[in-house]
């Protein structure tokens, strides 16, 4: 059981290092992929806004980490 939870922890560690970065990324994915899917005004801009948002999340996280 211990080995299993250890393996699970290692597996999750492949994707999540800083929890706030993972949470912010997932929230942004949910907002842009599903929340804004039916807004016609955003149709053409959804992809670039999504990408810039991810880049912004990365920079914000790096700044916060660098300040610590």
């Amino acid at each position, binding site marked *: 059981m211990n080995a299993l939870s250890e393996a699970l922890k*290692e*597996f999750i560690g*492949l*994707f*999540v*290092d*800083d929890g706030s*970065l*993972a949470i912010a*990324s*997932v929230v942004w*994915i949910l907002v*842009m*992929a*599903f929340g804004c*899917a039916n807004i016609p005004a955003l*149709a*053409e801009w*959804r*992809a*670039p806004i*999504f*990408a*810039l948002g*991810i*880049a*912004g*999340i*990365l*920079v914000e*996280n*790096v*700044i916060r*980490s*660098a*300040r610590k």
Partner: protein
Amino acid sequence: MTWTHAGPALIASFLASMVEFVEALTIVLAVGTIRGWKSALYGTFAGVALLVLMVAIFGPALNHIPLHILQIVIGVLLLLFGIRWLRKAVLRAGGKISLHDEAAAYEKTRIKLSGNGSSVAALDGVAVVTAFKAVVLEGLEVVFIVIATGANGLLIPASAGALAAGIVVISLGIAIHKPLTRIPENTLKYAVGVILTSFGTFWIGEGSGMAWPGRDESLLGLAVVFLVASLIGVAITKSYMRVPEPETEVAS
């Protein structure tokens, strides 16, 4: 299938897989040198067997999942995986965290394994598990990289890239019998972080019906966006740091 279509998947898979193979090789080399090659090879082959079994079981199941769901799931995992690498690479480049050092990783494993005085000729449980764990964990990342970069019908070039990386790293490991410290792993990880984050973002967009300008060519634009963002991150991190040269230590 043209080179411009298959090339990015092949190169991305090759570079990303190379990093994983180097990390696995370092651990297996340390196990083999300290506790004997029998244990190291048993652990390695057991790890490879488990990976093959997992691919054989889960691989065909991927064909039954609707494409847009697969793109979103793979995209999310790939984005989390890539942005984690990219964040660490930026903080390393900015001097906030120490650089990854294969020699230090090798030494750490060597010290860990040196404590128990079992014979190098006998099969050693701790050594087998250490090699097994390294191969399975790094191998899982390779499998994941191949699936992610090879989605959209590019599994063959992506697999070829990973296979080539494996052959290069294993051949070098057999030839020099030392950790591959001369491979610029930190730079590779930075580049791979940019590539995987770009692929992840692209697949999420594709799966959720976003319209990428230029279709597949937008991957290049995404790589530029994440490269620029990461360079901004490096510059800001450096501005917060007072010590210009970080010390090296073991970090994954």
